[in-house]
């Protein structure tokens, strides 16, 4: 077959794909008889209300000298690891604000960090295209350098996001600018599975976020600059279980809903969305109208432990608290006293759901909880 014939076949296949996607969209619309807010209103639900001093910033974690890009809580004990443009990982005691570790990284361009389930190690990755593992029991030098206990190399692009598989200190999943996600065996440093890639079915652009299902750790979702989120089964790397369309811009952040059957997304199109993993339905759009101004992009999201609240950080410094059932903004943490002075780049909930930590381009982290 000649190149010209191949190009024709390519065009025909592209048309067929687009037409099938349209048909799928139409068919799905017929099944969208309501959204979560419509259902909740029909049941007489009223929005969560917060008084002006109900949620307060209880700690400001100061120490980074550059933008904070990523944070993660330990699964137990209230410690947080953060990664910053200053080229350091800092481990904090969230209750006392003390720094227990300040690790100077071999590559300063770090984008993501994660705590291991046992809290003994941290992982980070960034523009060096590698994921580095540090054992926190190792001593640091005077300048804060710590030997890397394991280097996970193999990605052909930056590492944007990483998460340890829950209850497994020896496996983690990374997302990358090379359009793939990878499941790693930390013991050997080898890739167990590669999800997507040049000659496999998967994302067609940079993958910038990953979230593993807390109820079934074989399932994870990824968010990409191709405007889709994809659900994967770690046992089947050859194709995604499902692709979720709907966003009109990069999907910057994905997070599983606490029941494990839904997940949330946040995008450059300014919206957050809730998708159902079993049916593929888009159950809710969380969109705050901004008039003629371009909507700020969503950088990060987290659900409260019951799923009733969706916290969303935006590029303009807002941090909206959405009532997930009524799809209403019930509080803007960005407007509270003592809030961040810059974009909120990352956020995460403590394991017991009692505190939210936000990280910002203003170099600080802040923890917020209910004022008792």
């Amino acid at each position, binding site marked *: *077959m000649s*190149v010209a014939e*191949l*190009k024709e076949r*390519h065009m025909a*296949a592209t048309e*067929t*794909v687009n037409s*099938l*996607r349209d048909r*799928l969209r139409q068919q*799905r619309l017929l*099944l*969208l*008889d*309501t*959204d*979560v807010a*419509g*259902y*909740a209103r029909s*049941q007489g*639900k009223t929005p*969560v*209300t*917060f*008084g002006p001093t*109900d*949620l307060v910033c209880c700690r400001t974690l100061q120490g980074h000298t550059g933008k904070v890009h990523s944070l993660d809580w330990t699964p137990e004990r209230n410690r947080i690891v953060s990664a910053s443009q200053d080229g350091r990982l800092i481990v904090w005691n969230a209750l006392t604000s003390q720094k227990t570790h300040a690790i100077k990284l071999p590559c300063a361009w770090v984008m993501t960090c994660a705590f291991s389930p046992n809290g003994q190690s941290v992982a980070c990755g960034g523009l060096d295209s590698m994921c580095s593992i540090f054992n926190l029991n190792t001593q640091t030098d005077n300048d804060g350098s710590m030997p890397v206990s394991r280097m996970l190399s193999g990605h052909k692009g930056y590492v944007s996001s990483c998460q340890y598989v829950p209850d497994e200190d020896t496996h983690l999943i990374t997302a990358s600018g090379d359009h793939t996600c990878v499941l790693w065996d930390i013991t050997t440093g080898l890739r167990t599975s590669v999800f997507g890639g*040049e*000659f496999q*079915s998967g994302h067609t652009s940079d993958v910038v976020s990953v979230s593993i299902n807390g109820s079934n750790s074989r399932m994870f979702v990824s968010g990409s600059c191709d405007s889709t989120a994809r659900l994967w089964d770690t046992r089947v790397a050859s*194709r995604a279980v499902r692709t979720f369309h709907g966003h009109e811009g990069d999907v910057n952040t994905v997070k599983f*809903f*606490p*029941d494990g*059957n*839904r997940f949330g997304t946040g995008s450059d199109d300014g919206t957050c969305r*809730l998708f*159902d993993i*079993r*049916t*593929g*339905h888009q*159950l*809710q759009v969380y969109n705050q109208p901004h008039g003629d101004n371009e909507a700020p992009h969503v950088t990060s999201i987290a659900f*409260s*432990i*019951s*799923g*009733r*609240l969706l916290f969303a950080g935006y590029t303009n410094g807002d941090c909206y608290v959405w009532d*997930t*059932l009524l799809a209403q903004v019930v509080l803007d943490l960005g407007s509270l006293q003592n809030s961040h002075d810059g974009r909120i780049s990352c956020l995460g909930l403590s394991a*017991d*759901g*009692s505190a*939210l930590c936000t990280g910002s381009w203003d170099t600080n982290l802040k923890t917020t*909880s*209910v004022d008792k």
Partner: protein
Amino acid sequence: MAGLRGNGSVPSLPPPRPKSPPQYPDLYGKRRELAKVQMLEREIGFLEEELKSIEGLQPASRSCKEVADFVTGNADPLIPTTKKIRRSRRFLEMALGKKTLSFSSKIDANFIQSLCSDKNEKFTAVLLKNV
């Protein structure tokens, strides 16, 4: 361009003459194009599978109910508990009648809070039953 001139002992090299690319076909580009087509055709298969699976799929309302049931069935430390006090005041208001409202408004907030605690649920039920 002047040719290279060596010194007297080293013969000068002939000037470079760039050659046209060879005439053989661009196999790498063809393989890449074929791979792209194969991926698209694979995607067509996945989409057709998905279209079939949509038949008989439950409507979104069922999933929305699951979300609502899960959310309302779980406690949340980030949702303020004072809401409980406000709800209990309204409940007391309804149960004890409006005249009692002025009385209940004098009731110490701690007393209301104690009515709300789990240990005092039975006490509250008994109180309301006897009104």
